[in-house]
């Protein structure tokens, strides 16, 4: 986790950070359930983990979407991909 965090913080480009954050997200999901175990109330934490998994996805999606569009904005050459 700390290593992902390192990538997230030190990563030379935004996308490296994005990878790091994504990795943190998936680890956090697991960690949440482990915490639930420690509290003996897993049923409560599952919901959070689920929500977490979903929203982690959104964040990553949004950030990557940024590039998809911004790139196009910069050189709106007209043609599609590649």
């Amino acid at each position, binding site marked *: *986790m*700390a*290593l*992902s965090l*390192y*990538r997230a913080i030190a990563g*030379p*480009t*935004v*996308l*490296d950070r*994005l*990878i*790091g954050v*994504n*990795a943190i997200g*998936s*680890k956090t*999901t*697991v960690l949440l*359930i*482990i915490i639930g*175990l420690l509290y003996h109330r*897993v*049923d409560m934490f*599952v*919901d959070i*983990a*689920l929500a977490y*998994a*979903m929203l982690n*996805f959104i964040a*990553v*999606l949004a*950030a*990557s*979407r*940024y*590039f*998809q569009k911004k*790139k*196009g904005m910069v050189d709106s050459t007209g043609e599609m991909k*590649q």
Partner: protein
Amino acid sequence: MIDIITSILLFLGLFFFLGGSIGIIRFPDFYSRLHPAGKLDSMGVLLSLCALALYTVKSLTMGNFLTAAKIIFIVSFVFITSPTATHAIIDAGMRAGLKHWNKNNNQDKKEEKP
């Protein structure tokens, strides 16, 4: 019995996580970093969550079973989203025009990405 399986799986999952993290750090360029990040993490999630699901159903009640099912639900969810996210990131990378690392010019372009 379940305890042992659980801990083995959990350990494996954590091992994959570790591998993923190290991979993220060690790999030379953005694209190759995505490989460990995308794969190893989803594997880690799969294993750990299965372990936890198993652990949950140790005492089998309806509630616990549903909880375990929910955990499996999370797993499947992650399995749908994780490749998509990986794809989204790599697509973004392509569009952002990040340079590819290849063997020939790794000496000078190692950590220098636009």
